[in-house]
């Protein structure tokens, strides 16, 4: 008895193989298309901007003369901004995630919160800018300070951090928690010594990716009215400041072509910064991920 009709198979094999080849081609084309666009973009930015990257570019303020323009105030502002965003958003984000995953009981209210957090992740960043302007800059009278912008950015990336942390916490096997409880540990002790250490790679990866979004985000800063003309270093959390994306945005709008090249230089620095942060995320993920 023969289970396989060899004639039938032979007659269809060619067709199936052709189909396979076609789809392979289509998907390869899709990948190449993205890659080609990215390469052109990178090529243009690097040929335009690399001439402006030097030590002076990092140590001088913006200037009316393109050759003298630098990103000293902008890069310092961006770093200060991150010093506010990182602790605030991680504390609130991870805290919320722990509450929702470990403490919260399953009731309508908590489900409502969870749905809203996922929705918040899809809200356009301009809206967060308006929120920040109304609440932090005007209502709390923080003005257009690092603190106001930092809190706004924290809100913007909070949903991403919460969701990433929730996933990481959920991935910790229940057996570990049960073992801890069996030893007489309280819930808090279990969270601190068992759940968090096991989930921290996931939490950090998500947080760093969220932070790299915050450092490149421009729209909320535009809405807040962050100045671009400024020749001093920030000297505290309430200081006026400018940030890298704002400075780039301003340069691209100038009439002089040379300023567009300076903007390209700024873009390269911002990209390098992003790449650096993302590679830390990848590094943490690969190095510390435990499998149970």
């Amino acid at each position, binding site marked *: 008895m023969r289970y396989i009709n060899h004639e039938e198979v032979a007659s269809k094999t060619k067709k199936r193989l052709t189909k396979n080849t076609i789809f392979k081609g289509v998907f390869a084309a899709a990948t190449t298309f993205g890659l080609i666009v990215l390469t052109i973009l990178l090529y243009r930015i690097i040929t335009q901007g690399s001439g402006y990257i030097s030590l002076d570019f990092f140590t001088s303020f913006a200037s009316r003369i393109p050759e003298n323009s630098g990103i000293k105030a902008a890069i310092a502002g961006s770093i200060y901004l991150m010093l506010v965003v990182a602790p605030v958003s991680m504390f609130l984000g991870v805290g919320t995630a722990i509450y929702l995953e470990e403490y919260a009981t399953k009731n309508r209210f908590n489900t409502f919160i969870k749905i809203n957090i996922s929705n918040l992740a899809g809200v356009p960043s301009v809206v967060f800018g308006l929120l920040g302007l109304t609440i932090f800059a005007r209502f709390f009278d923080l003005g257009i300070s690092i603190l106001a912008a930092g809190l706004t950015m924290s809100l913007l990336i909070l949903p991403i951090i919460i969701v990433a942390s929730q996933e990481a916490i959920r991935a910790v096997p229940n057996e570990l928690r049960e073992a801890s409880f069996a030893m007489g540990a309280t819930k808090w002790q279990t969270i601190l010594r068992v759940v968090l250490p096991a989930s921290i790679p996931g939490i950090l990866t998500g947080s760093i990716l969220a932070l790299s979004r915050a450092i490149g985000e421009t729209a909320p800063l535009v809405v807040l009215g962050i100045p671009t003309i400024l020749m001093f270093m920030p000297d505290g959390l309430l200081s*006026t400041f400018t940030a890298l994306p704002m400075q780039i945005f301003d340069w691209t709008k100038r009439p002089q072509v040379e300023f567009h090249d300076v903007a390209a230089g700024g873009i390269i620095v911002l990209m390098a910064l992003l790449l650096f942060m993302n590679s830390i995320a990848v590094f943490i993920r690969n190095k510390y991920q435990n499998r149970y």
Partner: protein
Amino acid sequence: MKNAKMLAMSTILGSAVFLAACGSEDEANGSDNGSEGSSEELSGQVQGDGSSTVAPIMEAIVEEYAAAQPGVQVSSGVSGTGGGFEKFIAGETSFSNASRPIKEEEEAGLEEEGVEYTEVELGYDGLSVVVNQENDWVDSLTVDELKEMWVETGEEKTWADIRDGWPEEPIEFYSPGTDSGTYDYFNEVILEEDDIVRSATLSEDDNVLVQGVLGSPNAIGYFGYAYYLENKDTLKVVPIDNGEGAVEPNNETIESGEYAPLSRPLFTYVRNDKVAEDPAVADFIMFAIENAGDLAEAVGYVRAPQEVYDEDMATIEELAAE
């Protein structure tokens, strides 16, 4: 997990060290430049916002001022003329850059807040009307023709509709966005508050307008003089005839006001109370008036007549002395 903590700590420490390094260098720069500045060392914060057209002049002024008075932290945003006035009225800024005179409703807003202000002229700009270089038929436009072109009538307009003998090709319009002072000024002197043609491409980024006009022989657009100067070789500027012969925008015709009605002053508005109370604000504005002419020309605009600067200077000096 120890390693993860180490990594986080070293990142934070690293950035802190970097910031400290930047900070100390800043101070060193400051003391170097301080010696050549004005006699009195001032300190404080001066905040402004407003027109992106005025921004290059303001940037040059702030840049020079930072060298003269390193203790004064001047910052200025580019939220546009209207956006700048909004903050000015709310009391968030001491000066507000504008590429058009203040509007009645803005004046009313300031009055309501009890704010008195002074208008300071920084320089002149000539709104330049440009067409593609392949456009060989337009040699000049009258103010009426400009209005006929740009006002919405409900019909598609061709060049032939504007003047007999011009090709029957639809006109493509490129205009700055409605938030800009440039649009407001054009709206006032050319459109006279009628609606702008609906097919017009509006953009807040003037470089987009330049690209648009470069892209089509039937295109027409207008923007600040600096953008025309930068693209002089690739665009064709249209001389404007206001009844006394066609005039092309250039430094002389804009400064003398001969290039009318499209030559416009660029302002910064200052709160009188800030000038009177805060020596840093007064000093900065005086510095601005003193250097505005040279710096305006350095960044592609035109200086105002010296009398204008002198007059503004006298007003500010009087306010500061109070």
